[in-house]
């Protein structure tokens, strides 16, 4: 996916994104990081056609996303948003099955292949035991996994995740990251995710996109791009690269 010189704002006077150009490489995981309110969710919203840019274009497979039909686009791109509501007494499996909607005609029922795909998505996200539970009764973390499962059932080429781990405890955070990585490696799904944890962004992202004040600050391979100097510049905190015994490195930050 390519983003070409986009400007956008929620009202005409105030631009939230000002001349953003970048690309998300096929088959890779890109992490987007940046301070609160810098426009990360807005950028994802533009990529997933929630909003239309004032100028510039978002291209998927070389074609402007605005030209795609609703279902046609939904077959290629799926999103999981920061906040998800569930109303009514729908079961987990039924909710995940909605992911198949873009592949079906109106009134067309799910066939065995669809059920298999839904089953795979449920299995992958560890929801097997929850299948028949009411989705509204789930905890925040379990709920987040349901929406991830729904997005997986869409079988997209590209998956957008907006802070998929923000409400989760550290166990589920890592679990979601592992799921995302597994889906990327097994099915070649391109993943673009907004994360607040810099260490996770670097560890699970092949590439990073660093944003500040509606502009791109840096972009490139994760480990090479994110440096203490960049973190200081973007977030205003002092970060130190620390090595663990097992050879992994991480940033320890302080004010």
């Amino acid at each position, binding site marked *: 996916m390519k983003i070409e010189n986009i400007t956008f704002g929620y009202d005409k006077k105030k631009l939230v994104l000002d001349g953003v150009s970048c690309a998300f490489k096929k088959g890779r995981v890109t992490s987007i990081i940046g301070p609160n309110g810098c426009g990360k969710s807005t950028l994802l919203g533009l990529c997933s056609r929630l909003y239309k840019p004032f100028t510039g274009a978002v291209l998927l497979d070389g074609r402007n996303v605005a030209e795609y*039909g609703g*279902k046609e686009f939904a077959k290629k791109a*799926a999103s999981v948003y920061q906040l998800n509501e569930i109303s*009514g007494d*729908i079961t987990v499996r039924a909710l995940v099955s*909605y992911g198949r909607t873009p592949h079906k005609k109106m009134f067309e029922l799910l066939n065995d292949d669809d059920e298999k795909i839904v089953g795979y998505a449920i299995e992958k996200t560890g929801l097997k035991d929850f299948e*028949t539970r009411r989705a509204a009764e789930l905890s925040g973390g379990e709920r987040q996994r349901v929406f991830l499962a729904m997005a997986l059932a869409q079988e997209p080429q590209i998956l957008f995740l907006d802070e998929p781990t923000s409400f989760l405890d550290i166990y589920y955070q890592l679990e979601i990251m592992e799921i995302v990585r597994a889906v990327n490696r097994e099915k070649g799904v391109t993943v673009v995710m907004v994360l607040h944890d810099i260490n996770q962004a670097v560890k699970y992202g092949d590439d990073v996109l660093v944003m500040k004040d509606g502009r791109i600050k840096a972009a490139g391979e994760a480990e090479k791009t994110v440096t203490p100097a960049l973190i200081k510049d973007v977030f205003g905190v002092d970060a130190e690269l620390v090595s663990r015994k097992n050879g992994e490195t991480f940033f320890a930050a302080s004010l």
Partner: protein
Amino acid sequence: MKMTAKNKIIKKAVVYGVSVLLTLFLIVVSIKAGYDKATLGRVIKGLFSGEDFVVDTLVRVNLPRTLVALFSGAALAVAGVLFQSVTRNRLADPSIVGVSSSTYTAGLTISLLFPALIPFSPLFAGVFGMAVFLLIFRLSYSHGVKSNRILTIGAAVNAVFMMIIITIAVMQNMSASNVLLSLSGSLAVPKPEVVYSTIALSSVGLIAALFCAGKCNILALGDKTAQGLGVNVLRMKLILAAISVFLTAVAAVNVGITAFLGLLAPLIAKKLLGGSHYDVLPLSAFLGGICLLAADCLGRAMNTPVTLPVGIITTVIGGMVFIVLLARSYKNAD
């Protein structure tokens, strides 16, 4: 609470079965209404044999009113379901946001100025109601519909139309009690063409609504998720709103502003059979018809000098439920 597939089917069968029986029972009660000399048994027998002169007369007098009540009730209830899908607010109803009063204004204007057009007045009223709704929609729109804004702006619009209706009535020298009666919905002896047009038009709207059940289910997942699944959310909401306004118009020109029915019926339907619109829509239609017909039977049965209009009964009951729900939803939010 776990429920097996089999239990679910049984529950559905029971709920629909009881609804159908209740509808049939109310039809008989409505046909018999007020005529003490005929027992319910005699009416039923007469209906089947077709040879009982008294029952035939009762049917001729009361059947039109019964049918109009049933179909208008179904239309109002389904209009409510659709409106709640559009606003994603289970306390939204076309009568609260001025759609009912604007369609009623249009209907009233036509009946006063162009009486020849009365059979078509649901169409004119529908178009006018849609225009008003689009205005409310536009004012409530900024990067997605803000459902609370729809409610507040709609309340203001509603107040304006209520004033217009009263102004028209005053200019026409209608007596106060006549205005109140027609506003709160009277079913008194509808003309045959009104009966036919109500049945035909509301059937069209109800069937259109059923076709949208799947889309309503997806919209219930939230605007963003629905968009992500390939639904054109804005277009779908406009279609649903159009059907909702149309159904409201069909009912409003016949039975006036029957407030809160669109709130009550869907609420009970969702409690009984859960959130899928494949169930909520048809069941709400049944319940709406049942409620309105029951209210009308009640109004006729009460020994008041003038038959109590259906609107008053549904508004009093529905209004109380609305207040309780509103209070509860604020409590939950705190």
